[in-house]
């Protein structure tokens, strides 16, 4: 995944309204009007958030010309998640090495006359 795409994804997700919109779209496509309903916000304000999400490739528009329903695009999220998981796994790998080292240190400490320092 290109860093620019990841930037755009994280930027888009940094806002609670946009996350709520995505969560709503995860249950199925919806028109701008339907998306506006649960929020104490004007339709233009919601449209602005949708534009950010669209630019980030997280949301696309459906075919119905009248309703122009918005749809969740799962792929960028899945890719961002993959990166996040790699990052976590890297550190988990590091800490598993540390686990093994600590076990050795505990054993070494218990042996009489073999204390370090």
């Amino acid at each position, binding site marked *: 995944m290109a860093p620019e795409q990841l930037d755009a994804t994280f930027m888009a997700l940094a806002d609670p309204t946009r996350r709520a919109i995505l969560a709503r779209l995860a249950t199925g496509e919806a028109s701008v009007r339907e998306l506006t309903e649960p929020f104490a916000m004007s339709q233009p304000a919601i449209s602005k958030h949708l534009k950010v999400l669209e630019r980030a490739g997280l949301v696309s528009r459906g075919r119905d010309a009248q309703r122009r329903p918005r749809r969740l695009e799962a792929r960028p*999220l899945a890719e961002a*998640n993959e990166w996040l998981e790699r990052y976590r796994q890297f550190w988990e790998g590091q800490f598993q*090495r540390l686990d093994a080292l600590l076990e050795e240190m505990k054993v070494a400490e218990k042996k009489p006359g073999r204390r370090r320092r």
Partner: protein
Amino acid sequence: MASSGTLKVTTPTDREIAMTRVFDAPRRLVFEAYTRPELLKRWLGVHAGWSLAVCEIDLRVGGAYRYVWRGPDGAEMGMGGVYREIVRNERIVATEKFDQSWYPGEAVGTVVLLEQGGRTTLTMTVRYQSKEVRDMVLKTPMASGVEAGFNKLAELLPTMAQEIK
């Protein structure tokens, strides 16, 4: 996973990222594993053909540390900083900067060790100065930094992933 907890990643503030992990050992051992070069070389950054080739530590406030990793095909990555605070077995605060960093300023890392019933909860928090840090992190997982969106994504994705399926 009997002996240890899973790694948790959180963002306490906009500029920070924190990792929390439980180790089945008293904290003085964890402190040693974090501050003695011969022990650090056993685990830190050791993966996929990389080793911690240089590890110099002057463990006192104002003292410097320097790490250099060597990887496959002669690749090298270095970082270092200065200790700002040291409470033996409990807490280390140090600046950190990578040699090949494109970003202005340095980050500040804080390691806190809490012991309970012979087990240690380690929290490693890194506070960054700039947005560009994230771009660097994308290129090397060794640098632990991202912005607030990162953790929010972590919270959001498990639920969303289920919903998407």
